[in-house]
């Protein structure tokens, strides 16, 4: 465990004592785990390509829990009925007029009781973490500081509609000093046949070098459906470390659309467990990088029950001296017969200094399985560039049109599967605005 991890461990909060025993035990377990292993290092296989030196350089300290109020916020990605502002990992206020059958509480409120399944869900993580202790240093830290966050519970058969979660951090923490690390936990519990759309917007409207360490846990009951859209457009000095854990029962469906458009260091561990039979997980995303940014996506689907379907579809455009890491893993466990799994990852490198480390993994221990994976890394098609230029578009415009088209397919999937052109167009427009430029050489 390195010196910085030791410093962070020393900043862990003391137990307040006013919470349920099981909760105190959970935090205690997280703290113990963190004190023993600290944050991951490059020696951990899952963090081989992603170093955390930048967080240390910013002198990042654990946030001390001072209440803050929202001074300014980014324009909402889309207009929604239910918008929740999360500042420094804390829920600011609750939405009015929730649909019948939907409960939304801050994590603190939820701990007072009344949310069916919350304890079981929260206790899931340390258990799964024991298998890979060191790679879960951030999750251990998140558990050790558990308290900030939010719970949404959707009762059986209810369509909860769409919620926009707008994340930001307070000013201060510019490069060099005062950067803080915020922890937050989101729990989503969808009973049988329930539906929910969660749109997350990570966009702090002022410069900061803060780190957000967020864990989302979703429990999908039989036939439940969760659509999860995530847009990350943080400042290049800010870091975002997230883990999404989805546990799926029979016939449930989880669809993820991730758009990593800006932010210095972005790491996302996305993990779906298809426990029941015929559960579906569709994970898709785009990462656009330039400058010296670093984006690391680890997507993992475990087929445990039979006849599950999973799909991973990711597109990346990397320019400047940026670095992307993409790890997509599918494990088809014994008994998950009849599983179908597809993995696709395509990348365009726009400069000679840009880097992508892509690694598809597939392990099959069941019968009658259909599985396929592909990963490609390439440059823009010279013929297509010439075709566009021959019609009057300059080189930069031509390249921008081609890279946008390459990524637009993810928006098209979103538009089609969520029947929402407006959201897809809003994201597509943002993608175009930040599309990395090709080097002249590239």
């Amino acid at each position: 465990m390195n010196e910085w991890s030791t410093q962070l461990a020393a900043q862990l909060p003391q137990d307040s004592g006013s919470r349920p025993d099981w909760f105190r035990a959970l935090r205690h377990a997280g703290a113990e785990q963190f004190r023993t292993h600290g944050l991951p290092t490059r020696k951990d296989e899952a963090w081989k390509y992603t170093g955390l030196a930048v967080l240390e350089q910013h002198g990042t300290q654990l946030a001390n829990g001072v209440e803050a109020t929202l001074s300014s916020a980014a324009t909402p990605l889309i207009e929604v009925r239910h918008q929740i502002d999360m500042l420094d990992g804390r829920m600011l206020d609750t939405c009015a007029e929730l649909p019948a059958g939907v409960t939304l509480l801050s994590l603190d409120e939820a701990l007072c009781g009344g949310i069916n399944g919350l304890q079981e869900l929260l206790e899931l993580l340390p258990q799964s973490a024991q298998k890979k202790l060191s790679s879960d240093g951030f999750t251990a830290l998140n558990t050790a500081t558990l308290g900030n966050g939010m719970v949404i519970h959707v009762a059986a058969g209810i369509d909860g509609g769409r919620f926009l979660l707008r994340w930001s951090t307070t000013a201060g923490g510019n490069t060099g000093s005062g950067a803080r690390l915020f922890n937050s936990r989101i729990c989503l519990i969808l009973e049988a046949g329930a539906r929910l759309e969660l749109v997350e917007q990570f966009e702090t409207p002022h410069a900061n070098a803060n780190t957000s360490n967020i864990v989302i846990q979703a429990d999908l009951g039989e036939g439940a459906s969760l659509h999860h859209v995530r847009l990350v457009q943080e400042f290049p000095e800010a870091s975002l470390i997230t883990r999404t854990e989805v546990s799926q029962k029979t016939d449930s469906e989880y669809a993820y659309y991730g758009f990593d458009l800006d932010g210095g260091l972005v790491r996302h561990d996305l993990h779906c467990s298809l426990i029941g039979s015929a559960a579906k997980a569709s994970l898709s995303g785009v990462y656009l990088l330039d400058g010296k940014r670093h984006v690391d996506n680890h997507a993992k689907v475990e087929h445990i029950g039979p006849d599950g379907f999973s799909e991973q579809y990711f597109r990346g455009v990397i320019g400047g001296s940026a670095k992307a890491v993409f790890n997509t893993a599918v494990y088809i466990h014994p008994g998950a017969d009849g599983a179908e799994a597809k993995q696709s990852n395509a990348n365009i490198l726009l400069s000679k200094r840009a880097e992508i480390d892509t690694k598809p993994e597939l392990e099959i221990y069941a019968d009658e399985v259909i599985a396929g994976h592909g990963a490609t890394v390439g440059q823009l098609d010279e013929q297509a560039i010439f075709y566009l230029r021959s019609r009057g578009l300059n080189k930069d415009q031509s390249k921008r049109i081609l890279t946008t088209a390459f990524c637009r397919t993810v928006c098209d999937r979103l538009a089609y599967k969520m029947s929402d052109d407006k959201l897809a167009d809003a994201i597509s427009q943002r993608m175009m605005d930040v599309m990395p430029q090709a080097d002249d050489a590239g």
Partner: protein
Amino acid sequence: MLKITNLHVEVAGKEILKGLDLEVKAGEIHAIMGPNGAGKSTLGYVLAGREGYEVTQGEVVFNGKNLLEMEPEERACEGVFLAFQYPVEIPGVNNTYFLRAALNAQRKYRQQSELDSVAFLRLVREKLKILHIGDELLHRAVNEGFSGGEKKRNEIFQMAVLEPMLAILDETDSGLDIDALKTVAEGVNRLRSPDRAMIVITHYQRLLDHIVPDKVHVLADGRLVATGGAELALKLEEQGYAWLEGGGIETLGNQSAGQAQMP
């Protein structure tokens, strides 16, 4: 409008064009015919500015400007249009979006105001009507999954919208059945104008039944070896290119094709 003098072009170190001379005036249609490998497509690409085509000698003057110094997009903005032999498929880029972006890039270059989507759509509808083309091409990605005929029609449609001064049609007839050929040829004829010149590169005479050229040139081994009127094309169709080999060529260059002697 266009004057090519002693043009020598190398591709990957191999000389393809070996001293080509050609002058095209406004309002004229010139057909360039010739056997495979003669350098016909190379001529089209050199004029459009494709990378990898190195001009080692000669000059190309377009409306008094040195065309060879310009980037491909500048040439387009100056009024040069190449209808590709193999139009490139560009998945994910909507045909209408692409064409409006191109037209506005050209208008901006010429210091004209850009067209908004309403004005652009009006223009597009008008052109489709003139060309007798349905609007199904508008909603699709550029050339993606288009049949051979649709791709060529899309080229002609782009030409109609961009209104170039000089259009080079590179084997626009290849891969077309007779009905598609007629549609394309009709489109080209409707775009004939006293201000516009066209160079029609083709393998076969049949396109020239529908697009009647002012002049026909034969390109063989990197040079124009014969020039004549529309009737030269008929002769070529009848006799093939084999008769060009040997002594007949020199004299042919100075005579009308009708009087050309066969070896």
